Structure formats: structure tokens, C-alpha cells
């Protein structure tokens, strides 16, 4: 298996004021292989969102190195980071984070345009991506005309429109009821299995964890466990 994301000795400290800071990450190591679906779990403040921001190149570590597809990413300048984000990484957020004045199709197309596709190409790509998530009949709807689940599906379509190697999710089911959560988990799993896209999902939701191949658990800025589903099942059997 090839590594798609690698974080070496990642540290991050946030200054909250004079003599007041938080160690969000304390020198963690993280390796994600291509095609994996990984859940990063832990209590609030454990550093899981920070790790996602750093692995997603939205933020830089104070110490440590980040590799995306084998290339060093934490030393890149902003312009190159933007290009990397647009082509190699997709994001799904808790609050859906769609641009409210744009239709579903425009929201998805925007990501394709930022990746360098023409408006026409981007529109076609957006339509295809929305069909995959089952919103082929909602292309012209604005976010306010869509349910929470539908909005998250638009966000998934946006994350996958450029066929990135990895999609990062920050509490992707956080704002959804349990039935809709399951729908979203199924869609992500389906994409993962069919296209081999890697998913790294920061979550509180145990159902998301159950659907993943691997669960990384964090506490106080450290990785306290890293279990594969098969191992987990085995250990449960032994117990």
C-alpha cells in the first residue's frame, strides 16, 4: 500500500493570550494509506480538528513535516498550497459550508473552476458529481432550498468533483439526524469503495467510526490508539 498522507512529529500550539496557550498537538505521527477510510475520534479539544487542518494544508504545524502523495507540503507557499488543496484534497465540513448565493451546481462547479477548469467543463463536472450523490434533480436549487442531508451531499459532490486522492471530513454528520447521518456515511463509503478515494473523517459519531477501516483516537494532542477494524473485531472476539 502507498502512503497518501504522512504527518511526522506534528506539533501545534495556539496562543490564547499572555502566558496562556494550548498544545493542540504534541509531536504526533500519522500515516494514512491510499484507499483507506479512517476515523479520527476523541473528545473536544483533543486536537483532532487541528490534525485535519494541518493534513488538509489549511494550517501549518509549528514543528514537524507533512507529506501529501509523497511530496512535502508544509513548506509550500500559499499559492502552491491553494493549488494542492484544489487538486489533491477535498473537504467536507460540519456546517456544510456552501456559498448561500450559489446553486448546488454552482457550488460544486466553483471547486472545479479553482482547479483550473473552464466554466463549461466545471459545470459538466459538477453535474456528474451531483448525480453520483443522487442530486441530479436538484442542480439549480440554492442551499436554503435543500435539506441538511441534501446540503451535505452537495458538499460531498464538491469535495469529489476534482477527483482528489483524499477527502477530509470535519464532523460530516455533526449537524444531521441519525437516519440522514447513515445515508451520508453510506454515500462516503460507497465513493471510497468504488473510486478508491481515501477518507479521513474527524468525528464524534461512533457510527462513522464503525463504517471506517481504521479508528485513530486522540487525547490531549496525542494519538492514544490506532486500530484497524479487523483487529478491533479480533480483539473483541478474544475478549
Amino acid at each position, binding site marked *: 500500500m502507498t502512503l497518501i498522507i504522512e504527518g511526522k512529529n506534528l506539533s501545534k500550539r495556539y496562543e490564547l493570550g499572555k502566558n496562556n496557550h494550548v498544545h493542540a498537538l504534541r509531536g504526533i505521527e500519522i500515516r494514512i494509506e491510499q484507499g483507506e477510510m479512517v476515523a479520527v475520534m476523541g473528545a473536544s479539544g483533543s486536537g483532532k480538528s487541528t490534525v485535519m*487542518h494541518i493534513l*488538509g494544508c*489549511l*494550517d501549518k504545524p509549528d514543528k514537524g513535516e507533512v507529506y501529501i502523495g509523497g511530496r512535502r507540503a508544509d513548506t509550500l507557499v*500559499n*499559492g502552491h498550497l*491553494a*493549488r494542492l*488543496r*484544489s*487538486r489533491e484534497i*477535498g*473537504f467536507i*465540513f460540519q456546517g456544510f*459550508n*456552501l*456559498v*448561500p*448565493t*450559489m446553486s448546488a451546481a*454552482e457550488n460544486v462547479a*466553483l*471547486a472545479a473552476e*479553482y*482547479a483550473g477548469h473552464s466554466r463549461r467543463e466545471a459545470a459538466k463536472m459538477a453535474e456528474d458529481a451531483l448525480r453520483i450523490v443522487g442530486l441530479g434533480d436538484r442542480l439549480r436549487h440554492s442551499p436554503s432550498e435543500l435539506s441538511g442531508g441534501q446540503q451535505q451531499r452537495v458538499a460531498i459532490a*464538491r469535495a469529489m468533483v*476534482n477527483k482528489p486522492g483524499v477527502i477530509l471530513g470535519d464532523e460530516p454528520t455533526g449537524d444531521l439526524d441519525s437516519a440522514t447521518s447513515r445515508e451520508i456515511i453510506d454515500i462516503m463509503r460507497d465513493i471510497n469503495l468504488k473510486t478508491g478515494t481515501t477518507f479521513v473523517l474527524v468525528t464524534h459519531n461512533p457510527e462513522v467510526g464503525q463504517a471506517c477501516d481504521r479508528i485513530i483516537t486522540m487525547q490531549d494532542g496525542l494519538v492514544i490508539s490506532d486500530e484497524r477494524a479487523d483487529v478491533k473485531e479480533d480483539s473483541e472476539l478474544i475478549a
Partner: protein
Amino acid sequence: MRTIKNVFRRKMRAALTISGIMIGVFALIVMGAMAEKITLLVDGGTKFYGDKVTMTAGNGGGMSLGTEPLSTKTVKDVEKVEGVARASASIMLLQDTKGASVNMGIPPMIGGIDGRGKAFESFKITFAEGRDIKAGENGVAVVGADMVKKLNAKVGGNIKLRGETFKVVGIMDKTLTAPDSEVVVSMHDIQKLYVKQLPVMLRDKVDPNTVATGLTIYIEKGQNPETVAKRINKQFPNFTATGPKAFQEQVASSTKIFTSIIFGIALISLLVGGLSVVNTMTMAVTERTREIGIRKAIGATSKAIVRQFLAESAVISLSGGLLGLLFGAGFVAMANSGNTGTPLFLVTFRLVAGSLSFALILGLLSGLYPSYHAARMNPVTALRYE
């Protein structure tokens, strides 16, 4: 399309900001049009007086309207002065005997010239319709472009000037300066009109066949008009000869100050409009912090963010500019059509282009700070913004 949609997301605010720019451009167009008209009048005067000397009776200063009598006999004497190529007598009278209507610039005049200077005149008059007055032809008139409406003049038709009827033989092309507000008649006719308006006591003292109020003196090539004017003043102490400098000093320089003040006021109002664009764009950036975070997360470069917000401020300022232009031009057209004399305003291409580009540049400059601020935002901080 997307940019326009974004701008009008907050309709009221967009409308208010656009109004700010609109009022600024409106002021710039209306006041600028007034300044342009004055500038053109003055340019015409500068051109007209540029190469000649004018002479009036009395010695009370150069720019009097020249209503004190002079004689056509003086013409021959003046032509003997060194440096004078030709002299031509003329009479200028106000068209309206009463206080006249409100009119800035040049009041409507009746003029008569003896035609001696035609070959020497560099300020050529052309005709939109009809022809010039022929030598020795009387009872006919040539009408300036801005006088057509006021006098209801038609070639072949009649007009009344100071109680006398004249047949219109020609309508002059627009010159955008003095001749537009003139009606020209023969020297003989103007002399009659001139004597008629004199007080009875003075009438006997004036010979209606030789009277004139001004002389236009054409200068020989290579001669300095100011020097020739000085020479004439020495030889004809009862008259005043003035060179082109007098017009420049008395009229052109003061109008320059006047037009600068007008433009200054208009620019200030536009600057105020510009500040409201800064305010609107700064608020738009703050309000859309989260959206900027999303855009950056999905791959927008800083350049793309700057471009987006700059495009939005350009849309605001251009819409304001175009509306201001529309209302300004409409106002100018209305004001000009309501005024039967010389139009007060002139909307020129350079004024339109200048106002629009100024509004656009101002909008772009105003959008620069907010968009730069937006582009520099850390995506994580922006995404967390509530």
C-alpha cells in the same frame, strides 16, 4: 453574473452605495458639462483673438462691449500703421433690449461686419443651411446655431430684430463659441439699427453711413500683435486697441480658476461616494469571512479572492457611474432644452470617459484594501468565523 448577484445580496446597502457614486458622477457630469461649455467658449475666444488686435472707441479698457461710436473712416488710417495688414469695422448690439433672459456665457448679439477682413480671418464660419450675406445685400440675416430656436428661424423665412424684419439666408454651423449666439446682418443694416437705438440727442451727431463700434485689425505676418496694439494706441489716443493677451489675462485665466473650483467640488462628492464603497466592501468582507474560508479551503488562491472582491467593487462603482451619467446627461439635456439661448452645458466625450474611468478607478482603489484583507485571511480562522 455571479459578481452582480453577490453585489445585490444586500439590496439596500448596494443601492445606497451605488447612489453615493451615482450622485458623485452626476455632480461631476453636470458641473463638468458647465465647465466644458465655458472652456470651449473661452477656447473659441482665445482662437478668435489669438492673431489679431481689436479696437474700440474710448480708452476705458479692452473688454468693453464696444458700444461707443467709432468711424469706418478710421479703418483706412489704422491700416497705415506699421504691421497692420487689414482693418475691418463692425458693430455689435445686444439682441434683447430689456434685461434679457438668464444666460451664462455670451448674451445673444446682433453683429454686422464690413467684410474687409474676410480673406484675413483665420476663424472660418461655415453654414449648416443656406449661405453667407453677399456684398451689398441688405435686409437679410445669417443666424447662429443656438439662435435658431429662440428666433424660430428658417432659411427663406423672416425674423424680427429690434423691431426690424430680416430675411434669413443662412444658418451657421455650430462653433461651440461666440458666433453660436449671434445673428449677423449687413454693415449697412446694423448701422441703421445702431443709430435707431441711440438717444435722440446723440443721433444727429452720428453719421449712420460710417458709424462703427469696433475694429478688427489683422496683423502682418511676423509681427507681434501686442507691439502693433501699442503702436496703434500711441497714434490713436482716443481709442483703445487690445491684443490677444488682454483676453487671455482677463477671461481665460479667471475661467480656469472657475472651472477648477467646479471640478474640485464634483471630485469631492465623488470621493465621498468612494469612501462609501470602502465601507460597503469592508462590511461585505467581514460578513463573508466564512465564505472566504470556504473558498480558500476548496482551492481559491489569494489572487482569486482579490479578483472577486475587486470585481464586486468595480460593479458597484460602474453601476453608480453609469446611472450618474444617465441622470447627469438627462439633466443637462433638460436644462439645455429649457433654455432658448446658448446651451449652458456641454457633455463632451472626454467628460463622459473621464467621469466613468474616475468612478471605476475610485471603485477599484476602494475595493483594494478590503479585498487584500480578505485574501490574507487564514482559512482556518475564516472558517471558524460566526
